[in-house]
């Protein structure tokens, strides 16, 4: 199961030129700012927006190829789509929503309901089967949307901002839930998001889209260490530190300690923005920053006037400083440095 897509599409002010390959069983996050064309890429893959040029093939078979005129209608593609805000059918019950894809593909009513019932059970929704989607919470509605998309057994699952509709309070729980359910699906998964925390939680690999072009692909760690554009650096290239929080301190699996300002307990993900990281030569001499880690410089990446310095030590971390600061400190590869961050500069979300 592979997806090969070369998408060329002009739509209003958007000029989309995207090449994308998904490997079997892979979860890829499509990241990018608003208007970059992320949702349009999903619509092209699903057949909801025919492409102008290029070629989209699933398992080698062309589903959209303007050069040969081949076009497979959305209903005939092995693609499941979870829409932003979920687009559940309000005039049907939850179980009818989940059974819809089976019914539309010709499964008899009784069998469709039975199989939909199994999906509801798997997603912990059995008790909501007869309710209308409007009465569900955001997290429940998302599970219904996911069950509905998976019920017809697609090979490629597309998720458009699956967490954007949720408030901060439920987001973490739903994200964890979504990760578990996505893990049970063995096809290809493509998740559109603009949040690196979501990408970290859900995806093996990220593809960053800006103004209709792919600007970078790789693992999140690779992208963080060497972002190629300003956007990637600011919004994608952040340090994500996973660990367990107890008494205001997050402890990583390798034993590094991160003092945080938020009151929470249990597994959590800390976001440390590279420009919040202060660097100094040698050993720390004391400051108001609650966090200080030591390490060696393993990479220096100049982006104009800004420089990203990758440090490996107590905690693997990327710092962003000015080129002038780099020169003042005379930092070179292999130098021992200390990195400090104020606890209040660290965002933490439960995981």
């Amino acid at each position: 199961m592979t997806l090969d897509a070369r998408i060329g599409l002009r739509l209003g002010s958007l000029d989309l030129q995207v090449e994308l390959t998904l490997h079997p069983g892979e979860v890829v996050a499509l990241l990018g700012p608003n208007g970059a064309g992320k949702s349009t890429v999903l619509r092209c893959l699903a057949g909801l927006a025919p492409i102008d040029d290029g070629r989209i093939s699933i398992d080698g078979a062309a589903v959209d190829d303007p050069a040969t005129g081949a076009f497979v209608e959305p209903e005939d593609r092995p693609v499941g789509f979870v829409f932003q805000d979920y687009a559940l059918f309000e005039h049907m019950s939850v179980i009818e929503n989940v059974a819809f894809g089976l019914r539309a593909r010709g499964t008899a009513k009784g069998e469709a309901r039975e199989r939909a019932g199994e999906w509801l059970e798997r997603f912990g929704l059995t008790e909501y089967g007869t309710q209308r989607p409007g009465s569900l919470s955001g997290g429940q509605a998302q599970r219904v949307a996911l069950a509905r998309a998976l019920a017809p057994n697609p090979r490629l699952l597309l998720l458009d901002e699956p967490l954007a509709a949720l408030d901060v309070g439920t987001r973490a729980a739903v994200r964890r839930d979504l990760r578990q359910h996505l893990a049970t699906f063995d096809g290809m998964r493509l998740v559109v998001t603009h949040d690196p925390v979501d990408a970290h939680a859900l995806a093996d690999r990220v593809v960053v889209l800006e103004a209709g072009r792919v600007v970078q692909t790789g693992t999140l760690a690779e992208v963080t260490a060497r972002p190629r554009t300003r956007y990637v650096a600011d919004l994608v290239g952040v340090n994500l530190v996973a660990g367990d929080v107890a008494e205001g301190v997050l402890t990583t699996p390798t034993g590094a300690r991160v003092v945080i300002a938020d009151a929470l307990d249990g597994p959590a993900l800390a976001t440390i923005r590279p420009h919040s990281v202060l660097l100094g030569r040698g050993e720390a001499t004391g400051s108001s920053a609650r966090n200080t880690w030591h390490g060696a410089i393993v990479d220096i990446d100049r982006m104009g006037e800004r420089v990203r310095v990758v440090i490996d030590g107590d905690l693997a971390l990327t710092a962003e400083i000015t080129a002038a600061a780099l020169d003042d400190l005379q930092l070179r590869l292999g130098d021992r440095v200390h990195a400090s961050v104020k606890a209040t500069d660290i965002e933490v979300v439960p995981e």
Partner: protein
Amino acid sequence: MPVPALALAIVAVAFFALPLVGLIWRAPWSNAWTYLTADTALVALRLSMVTSLCATALSIVFGVPLAWLLARVDFPGRGAVRALCLLSMVLPPVVGGVALFFALGRRGLVGQYLDQWFGITLPFTTAGVVVAQTFVAMPFLVITVEAALRQLDPRLEDASRTLGASRWYTFRRVTLPAIRPALTAGAVLAWARALGEFGATITFAGNFPGTTQTMPLAVYLSLETNPEEAIVLALLMIAISFTVLVGLRDRWFGAVGRPVQVAA
């Protein structure tokens, strides 16, 4: 609610209520039963019911696809086509009837071929009544359904397609149920318009008891010969329409889905 607005609203209610009160005030209650059970009344009532329901059915069958075309398909001259289809709402019905006559009459543009090839004659027949009523009633359904289609989240139809539903299955199982309140409202408006239709009917279909003399025509005719009968027939029409409008309002308009919006 601000007091001036409330006062104006009350005036508006009175404006609609007073003519009804006037009719009730002048109604010959002692003879009412006689007039109601007279042949003219029963025949006209039956004809009105049959023709207005047929016109409503035709309005739905052709009007829903037309609304879909206007709401969803982007084609050059769409504005002009919409204006053309809604023209009969503002046209004096008598003019509409005359125009229908030129188009579908026995010597009409299309009517001559209907007559020659198929032996179908529309003017001065019950079918002609239905045609005249549909002509004036369908636009009410079209604008209501078009507005609902425009408000419908297009992603619902997209979701249906990605779940394996064809365009037709999507239309039947997703689009139609989602716009059902608007469709009901539009159908009721169209039916009410068809039931009250007068001008186009009398010019296109004439005024023959039993075949083309609907209630409004019977009322108009008896105003000249027997005003008492006219008042009774008018009150009967009002009672039927009022009952249907009140009954449907509670059952459909408010309860189901989002509030129905009728385009201006």
